[in-house]
């Protein structure tokens, strides 16, 4: 699998896919997309990168253990739910704020935070699995 072409293209492909996954994640609320699909795309990106260069560079690239990312995602989703406590509404009720950042109105919401959590859980869990299997591939 480690042909020159593949190894040359892989970094660009992976970066583009990661970028695309974030795009898909953020537009998910209004267009097709969302956390699940975004997480899967990001996981595939890392899988490709791993196949091209081996597992260690991937692990270095993401800095954290993928399961830690998944745990972070689950925590984020839980926090998105618990935030509703401060507004005296039931668990996981959607809350929206519209702050102005550089003059542009940005919609921030707990469902979005929740979706980012989903993204990280899917991304982390599947990357962890793929990397673990790839790692064994070589020993």
């Amino acid at each position: 699998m480690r042909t020159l072409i593949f190894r040359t293209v892989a970094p660009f492909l992976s970066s583009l896919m990661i970028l695309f996954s974030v795009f898909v994640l953020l537009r998910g609320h209004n267009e097709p997309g969302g956390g699940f699909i975004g997480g899967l795309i990001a996981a595939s990106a890392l899988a490709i990168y791993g196949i091209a260069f081996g597992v260690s560079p991937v692990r270095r690239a993401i800095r954290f253990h993928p399961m830690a990312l998944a745990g972070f995602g689950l925590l984020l989703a839980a926090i998105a739910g618990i935030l509703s406590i401060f507004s005296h509404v039931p668990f996981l009720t959607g809350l929206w704020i519209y702050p102005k950042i550089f003059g542009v109105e940005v919609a921030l919401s707990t469902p979005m935070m929740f979706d980012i959590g989903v993204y990280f859980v899917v991304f982390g869990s599947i990357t962890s699995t793929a990397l673990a299997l790839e790692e064994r591939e070589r020993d």
Partner: protein
Amino acid sequence: METAMAFLTGLFFATSLYLMLSKHIIRVLLGVAVLGNAVNLTIFTTGRLTREIPPIIPDDAVVPIDAIANPLPQALVLTAIVISFSFFAFLLVLVFRSYQELGTDDTDEMREAEPVDEPAPPLGY
């Protein structure tokens, strides 16, 4: 339309079950992968089918204008796909590991939990 999907779903089921009836654990695994698709198709089909119009509200409307595809089964199936994938990955690793540990891919020979000559329990108190 739904009829065709019903028959196709049935075929998915029959294929996956046939694979799962094998003694070979790798075929059981393939069967589980197909079974996931079969179940997803079932949920999707029972929600009734609509061609080509995704359940997205147009920019200038508050509610969908045309008849759109049923979003509920889609939401259910979306999570089901991811879950069945993680289940599949887990099974794959389990198969992999049990093959390493037990040195066989024949389910009949995997008798760790239920050995062939298991002694009868004691009859005392």
